């Protein structure tokens, strides 16, 4: 079990709902300050997007964020360099597309993650069948490769995904791309429920979670939530680290309240 999964399990066992905010790496000059704000607001782990030119699983917001970051000269190398030596106290999870993993080869890529202190990896377009090589490289580097499950995934396959995933299982809440949504979809609860039944690995629900209410609702079945587009939308609109921190703090509070309504 990798450091990421150990950390998430511990927090879950401590009765805490998990909160994993997302940031597109190098989105601004002071992007690392957002990470600190995330931690201060109560993040349990942080997802760092390594922007790709053609993010086919992302909606308009994260596409735009990727585009902005790339225009500012973002690259895997530069972002990992920026993460190196940060002592945030929560694990980092890189999230990207297979083309960037393949670019220097999965071994070099995972090695670089390790060096930069990144404990987990999400590859949006790497389903089970294609995962072997990256899985091996990640394991060798001590990086947890978290797999995604979706509402379209049939039950036997869900079990396989849960089994092979490391760190956590990323439950994609709906049939669609990343991006804010007005409400949590019904499929989200169903999927998270199925997953939690078939595995004791942490299950994080992502895609579309935008409000404290939605987050609170999500953790009635899931172990935690990933919040991405809602954060990036704010940052693209000019929100400072403090602004985003306040937004996340509210979400943290809703999560905590949901877990311990009495206190």
């Amino acid at each position, binding site marked *: 079990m990798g450091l990421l999964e150990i950390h998430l399990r511990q927090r879950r066992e401590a009765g805490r709902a998990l909160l994993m905010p997302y940031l597109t790496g190098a989105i601004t000059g002071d992007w690392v300050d957002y990470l600190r704000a995330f931690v201060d607001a109560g993040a349990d782990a942080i997802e760092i997007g390594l922007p790709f030119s*053609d993010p*086919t699983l*992302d909606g308009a917001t994260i*596409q735009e964020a990727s585009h902005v970051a790339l225009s500012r000269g973002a690259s895997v190398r530069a972002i990992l360099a920026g993460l190196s030596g940060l002592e945030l106290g929560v694990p980092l999870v890189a999230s990207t*597309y297979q083309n960037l993993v393949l*670019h220097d080869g999965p071994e070099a890529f995972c090695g670089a993650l390790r060096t930069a202190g990144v404990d987990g990896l999400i590859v949006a377009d790497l389903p089970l069948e294609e995962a072997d090589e990256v899985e091996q490289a990640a394991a060798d580097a001590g990086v947890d490769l978290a797999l995604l499950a979706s509402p379209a*995934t*049939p039950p036997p396959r869900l079990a396989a995904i849960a089994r092979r995933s490391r760190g956590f299982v990323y439950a994609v809440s709906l*049939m669609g791309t990343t991006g804010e949504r007005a409400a949590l979809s019904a499929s989200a609860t169903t999927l998270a429920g199925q997953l939690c039944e078939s595995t004791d690995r942490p299950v994080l629900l992502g895609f579309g979670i935008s409000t404290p209410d939605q987050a609170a609702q999500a953790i009635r079945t899931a172990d935690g939530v990933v919040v991405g587009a809602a954060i990036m939308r704010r940052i693209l609109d000019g929100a400072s680290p403090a602004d985003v921190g306040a937004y996340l703090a509210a979400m943290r509070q809703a999560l905590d309240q949901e877990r311990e309504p009495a206190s």
Partner: protein
Amino acid sequence: MTDLRLRPRDLPRPRDLPIVRPAGTMSDPGPRGKFGDHGGRYVPESLVAACQEVEDAFRDAWSDPGFRGSLATLLAVHAGRPTALTPAWRLSAELGITLLLKREDLAHTGSHKINNVLGQALLATRMGRTRLLAETGAGQHGVATATAAALLGLSATVFMGERDVERQALNVFRMRVLGAEVVPVGTGSRTLKDATSEAMRHWVTCVDDAYYCMGSVVGPHPYPWMVREFQRVIGEEARGQCATELRTGVPDYVVACVGGGSNAAGTFAGFADTAAQFVGVEAAGGAGATEGRTGVLHGFRSRFLQDDDGQITEAESIAAGLDYPGVGPEHAYLRDLGRARYVTVTDAEVVDAALRLARTEGILPALESAHAVAWVIRAAESGELPPGATVLLTLSGRGDKDTATLMELV
């Protein structure tokens, strides 16, 4: 409808067609859809089941003589197959070779795209889908998709980069006249690559009623294989026609332009078991097979144009249909095997070749197809093609759509 022997409700219907099960190169890439290291199914988990459904349906259909018979009927009665094989008499004489043109420009809607689209649309119907999704660059695949949708009573949504919507206004209008919805895509380079990404994003949201109709031998498994199989009709017809036209039966060279690579793959497939040398001709500005490096995009592993950081770069060609930064996975594999060569020609060579073919044979080719012509001219004139060589060239489409482009140049 009382007096029509051939009816839509008869589709699909059994026909006693023998089903060719090819073995060796250019055969079934197996359940993983692998062409050597290339191909595969690199899609978000949300699309895995949808791809699997398409694969299952295609495997089932393709081994069903009823489906094959229906498709053969549609190709014949609606798309005008078989297409002619035209000896390019005057150009052959000028070049000292024997050049035969496989005339996909004569197919309905003006290019080979219709072969594939009729196959996929029929498959979509068989799967109970009511809607086709597609990406398009120049608009040829979009027009073909809109056509097949109209014919089979399906609705169609075509994603097209905003730049292409502007550049190809006539094709946009044709699609709309045919009843399709055209969705302009404003992200990224606002061309084919981004239209494809956007179509895939949209597909995730409607996998239950929509069928994604891919326009070339690209995308996740089973698309590269399936589209090659639907385009195989080019190569098989040409094989038979060459057997009649050529004393040697088989040409020395088989040449086609390569964008994603579907017309080339379909042509090569008909000659896979021969000694014919395969040449795929890319645009100098969109040479995925020639200059790309290994990567993953749009669901498949192949060669792609990329920068030093692994970001996909833009293709840039006078032929909108070749404006794609990658190449179908099977082409990457044929290249690895040495079974096919991939070469490039420049925009200037392409324009010259198009005009020369128009003046020698009375055929104005699509600028995409003119890439293949340009290479044959260069290779014959440089002696790379030996005198007397026999060359089959797939003329993938007609040049009418490119007249406006040519008008600015000539």
